[in-house]
Protein backbone atom coordinates (compact mmCIF):
# COMPACT_ATOMS: atom_id res chain seq x y z
CA UNK A 1 0.00 0.00 0.00
CA UNK A 2 1.25 3.47 -0.87
CA UNK A 3 2.17 5.61 2.13
CA UNK A 4 1.78 9.37 1.81
CA UNK A 5 3.35 11.84 4.24
CA UNK A 6 0.79 14.37 5.47
CA UNK A 7 2.57 17.62 6.38
CA UNK A 8 -0.18 18.50 8.87
CA UNK A 9 -0.35 15.14 10.66
CA UNK A 10 3.45 14.90 10.33
CA UNK A 11 3.14 11.21 9.65
CA UNK A 12 2.97 8.74 6.81
CA UNK A 13 -0.54 7.43 6.28
CA UNK A 14 -2.12 4.96 3.93
CA UNK A 15 -3.24 6.14 0.52
CA UNK A 16 -6.79 5.10 1.50
CA UNK A 17 -7.06 8.22 3.65
CA UNK A 18 -6.20 10.59 0.78
CA UNK A 19 -7.82 11.97 -2.31
CA UNK A 20 -6.25 13.66 -5.30
CA UNK A 21 -7.44 17.19 -5.99
CA UNK A 22 -5.90 18.10 -9.34
CA UNK A 23 -2.92 20.22 -10.31
CA UNK A 24 -1.27 22.51 -7.77
CA UNK A 25 -0.11 26.11 -8.10
CA UNK A 26 -2.87 27.18 -10.49
CA UNK A 27 -3.54 30.80 -9.67
CA UNK A 28 -7.04 32.18 -10.14
CA UNK A 29 -6.86 35.41 -12.16
CA UNK A 30 -7.71 38.41 -9.99
CA UNK A 31 -9.70 39.99 -12.84
CA UNK A 32 -11.80 36.87 -13.45
CA UNK A 33 -14.81 38.85 -14.75
CA UNK A 34 -12.77 40.59 -17.44
CA UNK A 35 -10.79 37.76 -19.01
CA UNK A 36 -11.80 36.26 -22.34
CA UNK A 37 -13.40 32.85 -22.76
CA UNK A 38 -10.13 31.49 -24.13
CA UNK A 39 -8.19 32.75 -21.14
CA UNK A 40 -10.80 31.26 -18.82
CA UNK A 41 -10.61 27.96 -20.63
CA UNK A 42 -6.85 28.04 -20.23
CA UNK A 43 -7.12 28.70 -16.48
CA UNK A 44 -10.04 26.40 -15.74
CA UNK A 45 -9.79 23.40 -18.03
CA UNK A 46 -6.43 23.02 -19.72
CA UNK A 47 -3.76 20.96 -17.94
CA UNK A 48 -0.38 19.65 -19.03
CA UNK A 49 -0.72 16.00 -17.93
CA UNK A 50 3.05 15.53 -17.97
CA UNK A 51 4.85 12.22 -17.97
CA UNK A 52 7.12 12.27 -14.92
CA UNK A 53 7.23 14.96 -12.25
CA UNK A 54 3.96 16.70 -11.47
CA UNK A 55 2.86 19.07 -8.70
CA UNK A 56 -0.55 18.15 -7.37
CA UNK A 57 -2.97 19.08 -4.63
CA UNK A 58 -3.94 16.24 -2.37
CA UNK A 59 -6.42 16.17 0.44
CA UNK A 60 -6.12 14.12 3.62
CA UNK A 61 -9.86 13.70 3.48
CA UNK A 62 -10.20 10.81 5.94
CA UNK A 63 -7.67 12.34 8.32
CA UNK A 64 -7.05 15.96 9.15
CA UNK A 65 -9.15 17.09 6.18
CA UNK A 66 -6.44 19.46 4.94
CA UNK A 67 -5.34 20.16 1.39
CA UNK A 68 -1.60 20.06 0.80
CA UNK A 69 0.70 19.94 -2.20
CA UNK A 70 2.79 17.06 -3.42
CA UNK A 71 5.49 16.48 -6.02
CA UNK A 72 4.80 13.10 -7.56
CA UNK A 73 6.04 11.01 -10.44
CA UNK A 74 3.20 10.05 -12.77
CA UNK A 75 5.10 7.03 -14.09
CA UNK A 76 6.25 5.39 -10.86
CA UNK A 77 3.56 6.92 -8.59
CA UNK A 78 6.38 7.84 -6.25
CA UNK A 79 5.87 10.86 -3.99
CA UNK A 80 9.06 12.95 -3.99
CA UNK A 81 7.90 15.38 -1.36
CA UNK A 82 4.79 16.88 0.21
CA UNK A 83 4.42 20.36 1.68
CA UNK A 84 1.74 22.51 3.24
CA UNK A 85 -0.65 24.53 1.11
CA UNK A 86 0.61 28.07 0.61
CA UNK A 87 4.27 27.12 0.81
CA UNK A 88 6.38 27.93 -2.27
CA UNK A 89 6.79 25.39 -5.02
CA UNK A 90 10.00 23.41 -4.47
CA UNK A 91 12.74 23.61 -7.07
CA UNK A 92 12.27 20.89 -9.69
CA UNK A 93 16.02 20.52 -10.34
CA UNK A 94 16.71 20.11 -6.62
CA UNK A 95 14.06 17.37 -6.31
CA UNK A 96 15.35 15.43 -9.29
CA UNK A 97 18.98 15.89 -8.17
CA UNK A 98 18.08 14.60 -4.70
CA UNK A 99 16.51 11.54 -6.30
CA UNK A 100 19.61 10.93 -8.41
CA UNK A 101 21.86 11.16 -5.34
CA UNK A 102 19.61 8.72 -3.49
CA UNK A 103 19.77 6.40 -6.46
CA UNK A 104 23.57 6.61 -6.55
CA UNK A 105 23.80 5.90 -2.82
CA UNK A 106 21.79 2.71 -3.18
Amino acid sequence: MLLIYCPYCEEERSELEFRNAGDAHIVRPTNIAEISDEEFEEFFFLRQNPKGLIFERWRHIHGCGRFFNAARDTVSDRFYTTYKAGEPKPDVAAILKGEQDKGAAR
Partner: protein
Amino acid sequence: MADLATATRKSALTARGGFSEVVLTPAPAASRLSLRAGADALPGLSAALGVTLPTRAKTSASKGKRHALWLGPDEWLVIDEGEADLMAAAAKSGALHSAVDVSHRNVAVVVSGPGAEVAINSGCPQDLSLAIFPVGACSRTIFGKVEIVLLRIAEDTFRVECWRSFSPYVFGMLSEGAADAGH
Protein backbone atom coordinates in the same frame (compact mmCIF):
# COMPACT_ATOMS: atom_id res chain seq x y z
CA MET B 1 1.60 -36.28 0.52
CA ALA B 2 1.49 -32.60 1.35
CA ASP B 3 -1.36 -31.44 3.52
CA LEU B 4 -4.03 -29.55 1.71
CA ALA B 5 -4.72 -26.08 3.03
CA THR B 6 -8.37 -25.88 3.89
CA ALA B 7 -10.35 -22.89 5.08
CA THR B 8 -12.48 -23.47 8.14
CA ARG B 9 -16.14 -23.35 7.31
CA LYS B 10 -18.01 -20.93 9.53
CA SER B 11 -21.65 -20.02 9.82
CA ALA B 12 -22.84 -16.72 8.43
CA LEU B 13 -23.76 -15.74 11.98
CA THR B 14 -20.47 -16.76 13.59
CA ALA B 15 -19.45 -13.14 13.80
CA ARG B 16 -22.58 -12.24 15.77
CA GLY B 17 -21.65 -14.24 18.82
CA GLY B 18 -19.16 -13.71 21.62
CA PHE B 19 -15.44 -13.69 20.96
CA SER B 20 -12.60 -14.88 23.11
CA GLU B 21 -10.19 -12.03 22.33
CA VAL B 22 -12.41 -9.00 21.85
CA VAL B 23 -15.43 -7.47 23.54
CA LEU B 24 -17.59 -5.12 21.46
CA THR B 25 -19.81 -2.80 23.47
CA PRO B 26 -22.11 -0.16 22.02
CA ALA B 27 -21.20 2.97 23.99
CA PRO B 28 -23.97 4.72 25.93
CA ALA B 29 -25.36 8.00 24.62
CA ALA B 30 -22.98 10.95 24.82
CA SER B 31 -23.03 14.56 23.75
CA ARG B 32 -20.61 15.55 21.04
CA LEU B 33 -19.43 18.78 19.53
CA SER B 34 -17.79 19.32 16.17
CA LEU B 35 -15.66 22.34 16.95
CA ARG B 36 -13.66 24.58 14.63
CA ALA B 37 -11.68 27.54 15.84
CA GLY B 38 -8.53 29.54 15.22
CA ALA B 39 -5.48 29.46 17.46
CA ASP B 40 -6.43 32.70 19.25
CA ALA B 41 -9.76 31.23 20.42
CA LEU B 42 -8.19 28.19 22.06
CA PRO B 43 -7.52 29.54 25.59
CA GLY B 44 -11.10 30.82 25.90
CA LEU B 45 -12.66 27.65 24.53
CA SER B 46 -10.44 25.40 26.64
CA ALA B 47 -11.45 27.29 29.78
CA ALA B 48 -15.13 27.22 28.86
CA LEU B 49 -15.13 23.49 28.05
CA GLY B 50 -12.97 22.58 31.02
CA VAL B 51 -10.57 20.57 28.91
CA THR B 52 -7.47 21.83 27.11
CA LEU B 53 -7.90 21.52 23.35
CA PRO B 54 -4.81 19.69 22.05
CA THR B 55 -2.80 21.33 19.29
CA ARG B 56 -0.56 18.42 18.32
CA ALA B 57 -1.63 15.95 15.65
CA LYS B 58 -3.13 12.65 16.80
CA THR B 59 -3.44 13.70 20.46
CA SER B 60 -6.41 14.09 22.76
CA ALA B 61 -7.08 15.55 26.18
CA SER B 62 -9.44 14.09 28.74
CA LYS B 63 -10.86 15.37 31.99
CA GLY B 64 -13.36 13.18 33.77
CA LYS B 65 -15.99 12.14 31.26
CA ARG B 66 -15.03 14.81 28.75
CA HIS B 67 -12.62 14.24 25.89
CA ALA B 68 -11.25 16.66 23.28
CA LEU B 69 -9.89 14.96 20.17
CA TRP B 70 -7.61 16.67 17.67
CA LEU B 71 -9.00 16.00 14.19
CA GLY B 72 -7.27 18.71 12.17
CA PRO B 73 -5.19 21.86 12.69
CA ASP B 74 -8.36 23.85 13.49
CA GLU B 75 -10.84 21.07 14.16
CA TRP B 76 -11.76 19.08 17.25
CA LEU B 77 -14.34 16.54 18.32
CA VAL B 78 -15.43 17.12 21.90
CA ILE B 79 -17.20 14.20 23.57
CA ASP B 80 -18.94 14.32 26.92
CA GLU B 81 -19.99 10.90 28.15
CA GLY B 82 -22.10 12.55 30.86
CA GLU B 83 -24.34 14.14 28.20
CA ALA B 84 -23.56 17.67 29.42
CA ASP B 85 -24.65 20.60 27.25
CA LEU B 86 -21.47 21.29 25.30
CA MET B 87 -23.08 23.87 23.02
CA ALA B 88 -23.93 26.08 26.00
CA ALA B 89 -20.45 25.65 27.42
CA ALA B 90 -18.77 26.61 24.14
CA ALA B 91 -21.11 29.58 23.69
CA LYS B 92 -19.95 30.98 27.04
CA SER B 93 -16.33 31.09 25.87
CA GLY B 94 -16.72 34.51 24.26
CA ALA B 95 -14.20 33.46 21.57
CA LEU B 96 -14.90 33.24 17.85
CA HIS B 97 -15.59 29.63 16.92
CA SER B 98 -17.93 27.36 15.00
CA ALA B 99 -19.63 24.59 16.96
CA VAL B 100 -22.10 22.02 15.70
CA ASP B 101 -23.90 19.63 18.02
CA VAL B 102 -23.31 16.18 16.51
CA SER B 103 -24.44 14.15 19.52
CA HIS B 104 -26.96 12.21 17.48
CA ARG B 105 -24.94 12.06 14.29
CA ASN B 106 -22.33 9.78 15.83
CA VAL B 107 -22.53 6.57 17.76
CA ALA B 108 -19.60 4.81 19.35
CA VAL B 109 -18.48 1.24 19.82
CA VAL B 110 -16.02 0.41 22.56
CA VAL B 111 -13.64 -2.29 21.39
CA SER B 112 -11.68 -3.92 24.20
CA GLY B 113 -9.64 -7.00 24.88
CA PRO B 114 -6.25 -8.34 23.78
CA GLY B 115 -7.47 -8.65 20.16
CA ALA B 116 -8.82 -5.09 19.90
CA GLU B 117 -5.95 -3.89 17.72
CA VAL B 118 -6.35 -6.81 15.34
CA ALA B 119 -10.12 -6.35 15.15
CA ILE B 120 -9.78 -2.69 14.18
CA ASN B 121 -6.87 -3.35 11.84
CA SER B 122 -9.11 -5.74 9.92
CA GLY B 123 -10.48 -2.62 8.21
CA CYS B 124 -8.20 0.22 9.23
CA PRO B 125 -4.78 0.82 7.67
CA GLN B 126 -3.24 2.74 10.59
CA ASP B 127 -0.41 1.37 12.70
CA LEU B 128 -2.09 0.78 16.08
CA SER B 129 0.94 -0.54 17.93
CA LEU B 130 1.43 1.14 21.33
CA ALA B 131 4.60 2.94 20.24
CA ILE B 132 2.90 4.66 17.31
CA PHE B 133 -0.65 4.93 18.65
CA PRO B 134 -0.27 5.29 22.44
CA VAL B 135 -3.06 5.58 25.00
CA GLY B 136 -4.81 8.92 24.40
CA ALA B 137 -3.93 8.98 20.71
CA CYS B 138 -6.84 9.72 18.40
CA SER B 139 -7.30 10.00 14.69
CA ARG B 140 -9.94 10.35 12.06
CA THR B 141 -9.32 7.51 9.67
CA ILE B 142 -11.01 4.94 7.53
CA PHE B 143 -12.47 1.58 8.50
CA GLY B 144 -13.48 -0.57 5.57
CA LYS B 145 -15.75 1.67 3.54
CA VAL B 146 -16.55 4.27 6.19
CA GLU B 147 -14.86 7.06 8.05
CA ILE B 148 -14.35 6.62 11.78
CA VAL B 149 -12.75 8.53 14.62
CA LEU B 150 -10.53 6.33 16.69
CA LEU B 151 -9.54 7.04 20.31
CA ARG B 152 -7.34 4.75 22.37
CA ILE B 153 -8.69 4.93 25.92
CA ALA B 154 -6.54 2.15 27.36
CA GLU B 155 -3.80 -0.17 26.14
CA ASP B 156 -6.37 -2.71 25.00
CA THR B 157 -9.43 -0.49 24.60
CA PHE B 158 -10.48 1.75 21.73
CA ARG B 159 -13.48 3.97 21.21
CA VAL B 160 -14.66 3.86 17.59
CA GLU B 161 -16.92 6.77 16.63
CA CYS B 162 -18.85 6.53 13.39
CA TRP B 163 -21.88 8.11 11.78
CA ARG B 164 -25.06 6.48 13.06
CA SER B 165 -26.34 5.15 9.74
CA PHE B 166 -22.97 3.45 9.21
CA SER B 167 -23.01 1.82 12.64
CA PRO B 168 -24.51 -1.56 11.59
CA TYR B 169 -21.74 -1.85 9.01
CA VAL B 170 -19.05 -0.84 11.50
CA PHE B 171 -20.34 -3.21 14.18
CA GLY B 172 -20.62 -6.06 11.68
CA MET B 173 -17.15 -5.42 10.29
CA LEU B 174 -15.68 -5.19 13.81
CA SER B 175 -17.42 -8.47 14.64
CA GLU B 176 -15.79 -10.13 11.63
CA GLY B 177 -12.42 -8.73 12.71
CA ALA B 178 -13.04 -9.86 16.27
CA ALA B 179 -13.90 -13.39 15.11
CA ASP B 180 -10.61 -13.47 13.19
CA ALA B 181 -8.60 -11.99 16.07
CA GLY B 182 -8.72 -15.32 17.89
CA HIS B 183 -6.83 -17.09 15.13
